[in-house]
């Protein structure tokens, strides 16, 4: 297993009390695993996307123009 040294900011250390080195390791690996699982899930959904560059641009331009018009309304 790869080893990584993590410096815990003092205020967090105080808040979480006297957590042992082993528990910090567990806490950090659980946190990282959860984050990576979510990223993997999102990647897996997006990998099936059929959206093309032209379609993305079409949608983006529509949305941006709608926001610009709202902003101009406020200015009036």
């Amino acid at each position, binding site marked *: 297993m790869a080893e990584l040294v993590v410096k815990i900011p003092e205020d967090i250390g105080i808040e979480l009390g006297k957590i042992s080195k082993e528990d910090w390791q567990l806490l950090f690996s659980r946190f990282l695993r959860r984050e990576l699982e979510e*990223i993997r899930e999102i990647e897996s*959904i997006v990998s099936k996307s059929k959206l093309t560059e032209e*379609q993305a641009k079409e949608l*983006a331009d529509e949305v941006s123009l709608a926001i610009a018009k709202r902003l101009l309304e*406020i200015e009036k």
Partner: protein
Amino acid sequence: MLLVVDANVVFSALMRRGKPLKVFELNKLLMKFEFIAPEFLFFEVGKRVDKILKFTEFSKEEFIRVFSFIKRELELIPLETFEDKIEEAKEKSPHLKDMPYVALSLKLDCMILSGDKGLKECLPDRVITPSEAVEILFGGTAS
């Protein structure tokens, strides 16, 4: 680093093998950027769900999952906050559609994250592309 995100980045993040999604994913872990966007961005995206589902071929649940992920990474800024920059933004923007992002970036003196080639060409010093953002996230500097 504060960055204004435009709709181009949001929609490109829904594309297969797109760099913009990488930016959101990496930043979720590294937290180097604070992403902001004009208010109503998600409201306007939400009005086009049927079209997005048709183009992406996502199920509604899949779209909600990805969209919520992106949404959590962005803070929306009320339009009133930067309305005083409209005139200056109109002059500097290549198109009217770019004006809200330019106005917000002028107001908060920050850059825009966009993959829009026209906007990058027109405002090279104010726009960073998703590829440049990935580079920064990995420890480099924007060229």
